[in-house]
């Protein structure tokens, strides 16, 4: 038994590619499932949430404008980075969710695989849900999906890592940027994910991770005029309704909470929920039924 004193980590937020403490200077105590102290997590404020939206908006142009191939590689890079840090996340997930080491390892494996799954989607989603429309007239028109913008994500409360990634990866795979509120009781895996994202070629601001009181942070995000959509995955029924009402003010796209088994391979709904369809028309120059043309 070594008597070396371990070095604790100061967990910080991840906003705009940087690791700030909460602007409010507040922290709250995070414990494991048995009530043992794990760390003091930053308790973000409304100001932190607004700063995160500014960062996400700033990052949107570059991220949504990146090629799908590039986004896919960046997402895959996240999986690579996670793979190397597996032990850390197994420990954090085991602590956060009260799981045995082997169960926590299964969660982390599934989480890494989830990144890989979404990495492969970035350059396929447009082919699956977009395409040419056979217009009854001399026009060419094409429907393509486009990201809706800044998405506020209330991450699942119970699944602190697999659930978190299952709601964040689809949002950014399609070119949106995200402001994520980590699980209130178990925010540490999410905050550590920030460190992974920072070293994974994900541009700063594409994902912003806040820890704190879910209701306190979700309310200003749901009401924020520069947020385009909100995923209510981790909101309870009463909070979800309140947030949905607030979201109506600028007609945010809302994904309501639903029962999800995060171990299952997801469908594409979490991607399509935050996509717009743009249809672009142009005359074809066809001169009519005679078949004559240019």
């Amino acid at each position, binding site marked *: 038994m070594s008597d070396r004193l371990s070095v604790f980590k100061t967990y910080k937020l991840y906003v705009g590619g940087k690791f700030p403490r909460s602007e409010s200077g507040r922290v709250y105590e995070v414990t494991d499932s048995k009530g043992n102290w794990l760390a003091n997590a930053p308790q973000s404020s409304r100001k932190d949430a607004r700063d995160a939206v500014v960062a996400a908006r700033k990052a949107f142009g570059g991220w949504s404008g990146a090629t799908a191939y590039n986004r896919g590689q960046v997402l895959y890079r996240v999986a690579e980075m996670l793979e190397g840090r597996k032990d850390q996340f197994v420990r954090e997930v085991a602590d956060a969710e009260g799981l045995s080491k082997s169960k926590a390892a299964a969660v982390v494996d599934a989480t890494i695989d989830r990144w890989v799954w979404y990495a492969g989607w970035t350059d396929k989603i447009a082919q699956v*849900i977009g395409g040419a429309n056979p217009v*009854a007239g001399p026009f060419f028109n094409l429907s393509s999906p486009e990201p809706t913008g800044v998405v506020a994500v209330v991450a699942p409360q119970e699944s602190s890592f697999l659930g978190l990634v299952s709601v964040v990866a689809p949002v950014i795979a399609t070119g949106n940027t995200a402001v994520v509120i980590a699980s209130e009781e178990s925010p540490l895996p999410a905050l550590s994910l920030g460190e992974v994202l920072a070293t994974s070629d994900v541009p700063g601001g594409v994902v912003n991770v806040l820890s704190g009181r879910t209701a306190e942070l979700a309310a200003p995000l749901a009401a924020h005029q520069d947020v385009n959509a909100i995923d209510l995955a981790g909101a309870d029924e009463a909070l979800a309704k309140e947030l949905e009402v607030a979201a109506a003010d600028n007609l945010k796209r809302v994904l309501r909470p639903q029962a999800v088994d995060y171990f299952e391979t997801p469908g594409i709904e979490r991607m399509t929920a935050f996509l717009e369809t743009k249809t672009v028309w142009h005359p074809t120059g066809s001169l009519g039924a005679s078949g004559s043309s240019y």
Partner: protein
Amino acid sequence: MASAFEYAPAPESRSVVDIAPSYGLFIDGEFAEAADGKVFKTVSPSTEEVLSEVAQAGEADVDRAVKAARKAFEKWSALPGSERAKYLFRIARIIQERSRELAVLETLDNGKPIKETRDADLPLVAAHFFYYAGWADKLDHAGFGANPRPLGVAGQVIPWNFPLLMLAWKIAPALATGNTVVLKPAETTPLSALFFADICRQAGLPKGVVNILPGYGDAGAALVAHPDVNKVAFTGSTAVGKEIARTVAGTRKKLTLELGGKGANIVFDDAPIDQAVEGIVTGIFFNQGQVCCAGSRLLVQESIQDELLDALKRRLSTLRLGDPLDKNTDIGAINSAEQLARITALAEQGEAEGAERWSPACELPESGYWFAPTLFTNVTQAHTIARDEIFGPVLSVLSFRTPDEAVAKANNTQYGLSAGIWTEKGSRILAVASKLRAGVIWSNTFNKFDPTSPFGGYKESGFGREGGRHGLEAYLDV
């Protein structure tokens, strides 16, 4: 400007349509009076003539209609898709057969020119039913997984600008996917929906599958809030859309909204001027500008502004305003006195805020609701007329110097429904189209619609898409 040609009157005959003096609500396959006996009058906007008296739905009627739709849902959703398809094909055919009658009816009740109801609305109405009919037995292949299920009862509230077309956009995909519907047409244009009830009868559609409730906003609100409605679809103003979003918050009701717009029509200096002028006219004067995706903000590159405006003014001087039943009429009546008042007030505000107003010499009929085609120059982005949806034949002209500035100005709005791009340079079309935050982009054309093509907005223009494969999603449990 003197016209080169004189036009003889060329009115379409009213005799093809037989409007009854009164109509009931259409519930469970029967016409019925409102529970509280209320009625309202529908008038022809071009003459203010009372066309008919129509039962006015209230809360009790909404409840009755939803119950009928719920009851019908069981059998309708259990029908093989191929059978539902045949009903919809029948409806499409009957619409084609009766399209002259419906076009005249729509013109009478709405005020829009017969050439638009005849050549745009009705063909599209039939095409929508025909298109979605074919989906009914192919839903497994629509990309939503195997055996996607209908939602149940759809509550649908539609506006007065395209009464029958909006009905088709709502009802065709709902029925194809196995839902039943309760539809509330707008209070100023209930007649074509009631004629559609008769088409359902001719097609032998089972009772209760389609229910039509003419009425006011209170009936719409009751329908949206009804606990046994599973899906809400609304087309109309952004303010009402937000109210509906609040109403369905915390429920499991699926919601799609098609709301307002303030479309930018961007003309670059290399655009074919004559085609652009036609596109600008189509963009803002089609349906008297009462179109959510109207190109109501003209963004013209500074170097061609004078040339373009001269050509546009010359073209506007040739537009013929008057009797909507005349086949040569370009501009019909505004749909209601209320809408006319709104357009008038916004135009006056435009003047008060310093924009320069221009209209061609244009004689307005003495009765009815009319507004001359109107152009505002000297408009800045801060002006109310450049920001608020006017929903009338009023065009605001702004200028820009670079493509980036055009994009920035076009996107400077809370709306995101439509935009136009006029340029001969293909790469510029693609570059600008990809940067515009709008659901429909027309390049070198404007205001084109097709049932195969998804339509709907970004930002506060609503959410969800109507038309195409995408339009099915709103009515499926996916």
